[in-house]
């Protein structure tokens, strides 16, 4: 089972969940998974779009009580 880190970006307008994810990815190993928590529904589109551009895997997104859980695997 891959390590999974939580990036709690709830209520983070600046720098925001994607920026927090990028920072944490720098400290992860290839294969590690990161679960981003965000109260900004824009993250549900923005994070997968960035993953596709840069080559990380977007594993899935769920929403629960106004919090989006976006799971990403470091792929390179």
């Amino acid at each position, binding site marked *: 089972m891959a390590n999974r880190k939580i990036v709690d970006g709830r209520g983070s307008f600046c720098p*925001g969940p994607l920026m927090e994810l990028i920072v944490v990815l720098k400290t992860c190993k290839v294969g590690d998974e990161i679960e981003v928590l965000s109260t900004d529904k824009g993250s549900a589109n923005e994070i997968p779009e*960035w993953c596709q551009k840069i080559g990380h895997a977007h594993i899935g997104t769920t929403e629960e009580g106004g919090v989006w859980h976006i799971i990403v695997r470091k792929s390179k």
Partner: protein
Amino acid sequence: MRVLIVGGGMGGTILANNLARRITNELKTGKARITMLSASDKHMYQPGLLYLAVGRMTPDELYRDQASLLEPGINFHVDPVEEFHLDKNSVKTKSGKTHEYDVMVIATGSRMFPEGVPGMVENSETFYTEETALKMFKRLQTFEGGKVVIAVGIPHKCPMAPLEITFMLQDYFKDRGLADKVQMHYTYPIGRVHSLENVAKWAAPEMDRLGIKYDTFFNIKEVDGAKKVLRSEEGVDINYDLLINIPAHKGMEVLEKNGLGQNGWVPTNRTKLNMEGRTNVFVCGDTTNIPISKAGSTAHFEADVLGENIAAMIKMGTTVREYDGKVFCFVEAGKDRATYAMFDYQNPPDPKAPTKAVHWFKMAYNKLYWISARGLL
């Protein structure tokens, strides 16, 4: 109660003064004691570096003697902490002294980390220290035209700085009669020109209007100084004649060495501001790992909450307030116009169109800061 404040920057200084005025009697009678340990006898107004880089402030305007800013009754020592012994409620300093505490606040700030990008330090200008800001201004004075690229590292200090330096440089070159010879090119790590959506909605059309190009989803990979190329992790190359770097930063090395937090960011409760797992250790300003702006105003508002709470702990044995994530950032939109962004954990900002009035208020605040530092504003 012995209160130990580690760090004499904006957060630590505002907190020390705020707290000292709340517990004047307790300090006089010896029921409470405030000690501040800092690495420097000088206090720098860091936002002034932006102006130093474009020749609008001089170095002496950035500094005051730290001791002159502190309320009487605060024990101030230039003696940085080297060892944290949280289980013993004590720290050991560079001089070898041990300081015990009942409550400690860690407010050690952050350090620039441009060396994390290959080729960045030797091929770019930046303005996050006095030395680099002066060097950048001297480089600007000899620049006669070409492509100026803004390279934004993450995480970075002061989220408005990338926009501010871009707009200020646009005006700087215009004033020098180089508007037709300089092409500004802005880059940003996520899919819009600023992390705050409403700020991005204002800034992108402003860049279009001024003819400033921009690339989004641009995370810096490396700089090829020989070819004068900035490369992104996303596979985009941008040629430059002058490269301006907003450097990535880290928390202080001493915190990493003592195992207090990865990259020097201390895990912190976002509303109570205590270090996770500790009830008598609090964290203030850049030092926290809270996912909000690393900015002076963040440190200021956190310090206000901590001052009130620690005073209440001394007087009543309990805290009284929670930090709501409040941040207030001025945004310079050129040499003579500015706006601002105010937000918290629940409410996004709604910046208005820039005005000269807000710019002049910011210029006034550059002087009023010394009253803020004293915990009066």
